[in-house]
């Protein structure tokens, strides 16, 4: 019974996550915070504390989980985590081997504690690795870059292709239009770094072929953190006298949390409250019950002192190695971050790479993309503005509003419109007026600032046949340019644009600034 309730709750939380994902788009009211679920991550309060040594109230959902865990155990993993639910579904599809077959992987359990330790040590030295491994972040990343675009491809493209067939046209549009209006208004999303994110996400699901909940058992740092808090959990499984030791509960346990030789005990650090054990206990026996105990027994964490020392040493070594690389100043000039992003180091510390900003950007200017590694590991999957493919919509400030950790601060629209993300430069070698003495100025046409940041001068040139003509040559006014990049997006050249945005003149949120004259346009 309770296992059935758990299954329904799992599906409901997954649907809730998807709902919040879907509302993260234009028009966004913020009445329901689209990033609410992401802040349920139990890792965020821990690492936020390690970073600031203070407690931030915006992470109350995560604290709520942490507060309940000593009593209930890893209920988050079994009931709430959408990645866990997806992993369960993958397990059904792929057909995971039984616990007996996968027994030999049990020794890998310590890995998740090692990973947690490693990420904590790196975080203390201001290297954010935990964000990549946060289960909610992983799930949102998979949704943004892989699943949602793939769903668009399947549904949207199928219907639009059907609409090309004359007698199917009306029927296809009949299905397509409400779908477009309510579910998926964005055009097909294309994201860079798709391969690695797909691989990362696919691997976590694919590991179900090795054992059930492989990720949760052996790798997930959130699971490790919750497991540490569950050692004395008060809600216990009790096995009555009637138990004939049929071992059914042991083989059906998702987490292999019931020791092989001792079905009367539960490994509290591993158990995720799925209640499968009670469900599979034969109806005639029904030996398994659950109840509160004020004097709970203790399960030790599967992580020896030797392993702790080894992983700590390895983390320190990793820290050194990660910082050895050359940070070439040249490589950073195109890494334009969203308006409102904190200064780069603090930004990389706070950002959990959930790509919620990338998601909401797709419904607007569609410039944000997961970044590549240019010279530092931490650049991976930070949001970066790829202006050739999309630009920052002048009247949009949504990325900051949905950032779960405030790595991008929410700016008011007026503030955002005054906050330069970067500065546009002409490449006069290829820009059409300079290269060919012909009018173009598409960049100037699209420039959205109330006083255009791109202006032009008219010069007289002599044409091939000796006639004189006037050509408009564009240039950028630094004080007016906000680096929105629409000039780069709309440049009619093939391939590389004749104008591009660099990080010059960028204004990061919370950074010390030279005071600037107030905008005449409020």
């Amino acid at each position, binding site marked *: 019974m309770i296992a059935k309730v758990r299954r329904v709750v799992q599906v409901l939380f997954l649907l809730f996550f998807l709902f919040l994902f879907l509302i993260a788009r234009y028009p966004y009211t913020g009445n329901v915070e689209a990033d609410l679920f992401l802040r349920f991550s139990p890792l965020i309060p821990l690492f936020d504390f390690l970073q600031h040594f203070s407690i931030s109230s915006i992470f109350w959902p995560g604290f709520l989980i942490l507060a309940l865990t000593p009593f209930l155990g890893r209920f988050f993993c079994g009931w709430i985590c959408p990645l866990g639910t997806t992993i369960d579904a993958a397990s059904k599809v792929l057909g995971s081997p039984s616990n007996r077959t996968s027994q030999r992987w049990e020794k890998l359990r310590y890995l998740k504690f090692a990973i947690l330790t490693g990420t904590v040590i790196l975080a203390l030295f201001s290297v954010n690795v935990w964000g990549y491994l946060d289960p909610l972040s992983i799930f949102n990343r998979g949704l943004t870059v892989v699943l949602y675009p793939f769903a668009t491809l399947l549904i949207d493209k199928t219907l639009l292709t059907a609409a090309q067939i004359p007698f199917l046209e009306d029927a296809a549009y009949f299905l397509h239009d409400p779908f477009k209006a309510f579910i998926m208004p964005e055009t097909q999303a294309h994201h860079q770094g798709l391969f690695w994110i797909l691989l990362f996400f696919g691997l976590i699901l694919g590991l179900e072929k090795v054992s059930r909940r492989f990720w949760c058992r052996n790798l997930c740092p959130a699971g490790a953190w919750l497991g540490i808090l569950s050692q004395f959990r008060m809600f216990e499984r009790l096995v009555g006298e009637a138990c004939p030791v049929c071992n059914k509960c042991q083989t059906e346990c998702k987490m292999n949390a019931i020791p092989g030789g001792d079905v009367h005990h539960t490994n509290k650090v591993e158990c995720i409250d799925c209640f499968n054990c009670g469900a599979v206990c034969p109806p005639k026996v029904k030996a398994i019950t659950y109840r509160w105990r004020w004097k709970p027994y203790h399960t030790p964490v599967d992580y020896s002192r030797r392993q702790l020392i080894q992983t700590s040493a390895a983390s320190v070594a990793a820290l050194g190695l990660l910082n050895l690389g050359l940070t070439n100043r040249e490589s950073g000039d195109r890494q334009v971050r969203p308006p409102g992003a904190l200064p780069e180091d603090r930004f990389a510390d706070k950002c959990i790479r959930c790509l919620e900003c990338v998601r909401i950007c797709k*419904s607007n200017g569609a410039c944000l993309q997961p970044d590549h590694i240019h010279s530092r590991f931490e650049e991976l999957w930070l949001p970066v503005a790829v202006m050739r493919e999309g630009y920052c919509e002048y009247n949009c400030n949504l990325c900051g509003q949905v950032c779960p950790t405030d790595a991008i601060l929410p700016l008011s629209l007026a503030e955002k419109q005054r906050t330069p993300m970067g500065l546009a430069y002409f490449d006069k070698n290829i820009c*059409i007026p300079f290269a060919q003495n012909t*009018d*173009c100025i598409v960049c100037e046409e699209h420039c959205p600032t109330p006083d255009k940041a791109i202006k032009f001068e008219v010069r007289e040139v002599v044409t091939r046949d000796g006639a004189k003509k006037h050509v408009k040559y564009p240039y950028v006014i630094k004080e007016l340019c906000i680096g929105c990049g629409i000039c780069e997006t709309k440049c009619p050249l093939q391939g590389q644009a004749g104008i591009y945005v660099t990080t010059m003149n960028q204004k990061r949120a919370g950074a010390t600034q030279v005071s600037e004259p107030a905008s005449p346009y409020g």
Partner: protein
Amino acid sequence: MDRRDFLRTAGMSIAGSAMLSSLQESVFASPAPPHVAWVENGEPAQLLAAALKEFGGMQKFISRGDVVVVKPNMGWDRAPQYAANTNPDLVAALVRECLNAGAKTVKVFDRTCNNPLRCYANSQVEASAHDAGADVSHIRETRFVTKSVNGEIIKEWPIYRDYLEADKTINVPIAKHHSLCRVTLGLKNLMGVMGGNRGDIHNSFTQKIVDIDRAILPSLTIVDAYRILTANGPVGGNLAHVKTTRSLIMSPCTLSADYTALNLFGLSPDDVDVVQEAMKRGLQKYDLRSLNVKKVRLA
């Protein structure tokens, strides 16, 4: 001739001349419609009604059962007061006029420059046209068909199918400043039904735009000059550049409408290359030097 005959003849001739004069009134008394109607000093719907009256009503342009495309400018993510997009009240009034004249459906769309969802919403054209009974839809990239235009530079270009297949098309630009072509009016507004990489049109712009426009001229052009944008166009964004002129210019000939609308900006045709080029290439339906412009000033 006796008295009786005289009276009869006199009576008949009086009656006849009376009949003749009434006949004359019905046949000859209504003057030929103007080439261009230029209405000032009114709200968008009044301006439209007054202009249509000069041409004898919308029925003169639209037949019962027609599929009509109304092509406003809603290319920018700007609210109406910034004068970057066609006035939503004008579009709504126009949709109603079309439907009242018997149009089967009135389709409204534009290929936008900013995000289409934002443009349709923020311009307020989507809501007002929809409320007026129009079929407002977003551009579907699959619905462009390659049209052969055989121009000087452009030989073929993708054009929106709904526009090509419509029985009647009404082009409703807003009069705006534009750096490249000085002003943007009816000829430029037709870019909203063009597919492909429109940035490519912007070098040798005048030739290319005329190349394509030649093949897709609308049935009617209505220049929205309720508010005009005098600088920083075509996006605008500064209310100081918006001039409220409360006017409207209507013509079955796009070039004649544009030609007349130059007056709003105090420009002469010599200042605007696109108009020059279009004249050279013969896009005008009427002789522009002796254009019959009916100017109406509403009370």
